[in-house]
């Protein structure tokens, strides 16, 4: 448990890790099986989920990637979030 994080934030981060892992596993598999349509659909599904969840996480808690770092708040949240090695993940 990270004292700096709410349960909701921890759960969202955990779920992004889960769908991100599935997408990566499928990507490595597809590298050596580039015509497997079923695997491609699987990859598309999980990558879409991951992008959605990363955007939701950015709106609520701050960006995990620069591509979702655009925000209307007054501070640069990218720099202010805890680093992953400090229990930020």
């Amino acid at each position, binding site marked *: *448990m*990270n004292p700096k994080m709410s349960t909701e934030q921890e759960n969202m*981060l*955990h779920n*992004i*890790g889960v769908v*991100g*892992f599935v997408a*990566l*596993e499928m*990507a*490595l*598999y597809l*590298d*050596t*099986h*580039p015509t497997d349509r079923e695997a491609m659909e699987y990859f598309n599904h999980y990558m879409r989920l991951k992008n959605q969840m990363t955007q939701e996480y950015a709106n609520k808690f701050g*960006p*995990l*990637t*620069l*591509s979702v770092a655009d925000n209307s708040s007054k501070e640069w949240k*990218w720099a202010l*979030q805890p*680093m*992953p*090695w400090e*229990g*930020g*993940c």
Partner: protein
Amino acid sequence: MWNYERRLQFPVKITQPNAKLAQVIISQYGGPDGEMGASMRYLSQRYAMPYNEVAGLLTDIGTEELAHLEMVATIVHQLTKNLSMEEIENSGFANYYVDHTIGIWPQAAGGVPFNANQFQSKGDPITDLVEDMAAEQKARSTYDNILRLIHDQEVCEPIRFLRAREIVHFQRFGEGLRIVQDNLDSKNFYAFNPAFDRCKN
């Protein structure tokens, strides 16, 4: 180019410092079968890989190894960050501490610094992929050895994750080797080096 995701591939949340364990686990940061060598090996080898699928595989696995490097560093960081001076003196950590305090530096468990001679980039696809498969097994054995030394569940879980990834990568590199061989003469895989010789088929 690369993009950074500000999260670990697998969570690391260690609450009990343990300098002895940190000294062992740092081998997977900069040791002979560690993640630094793994990522540099695959990311260097890919330029001599003439088959797109396999060059892509080297890129993707090399990239994942950078995420593993970050996980190993995080484990060592969390195992050492709240050490007292007494623990540093009594755990054998003083030799590391004197040069690096509790910063992260790539070395093997025995103190040998990271060295590019710990991996090869031979410029020959079969040679490189066979090395990659061996590298994954050597890293898997190292994680097995580390797991026998750990009794703290918080450290075990991310190490088990890393160990499992070595097995998956071994499988994918095996498929990569098959793709390379499918592109070569089945009567003599070694007739020429497809990354160097001009005569093809």
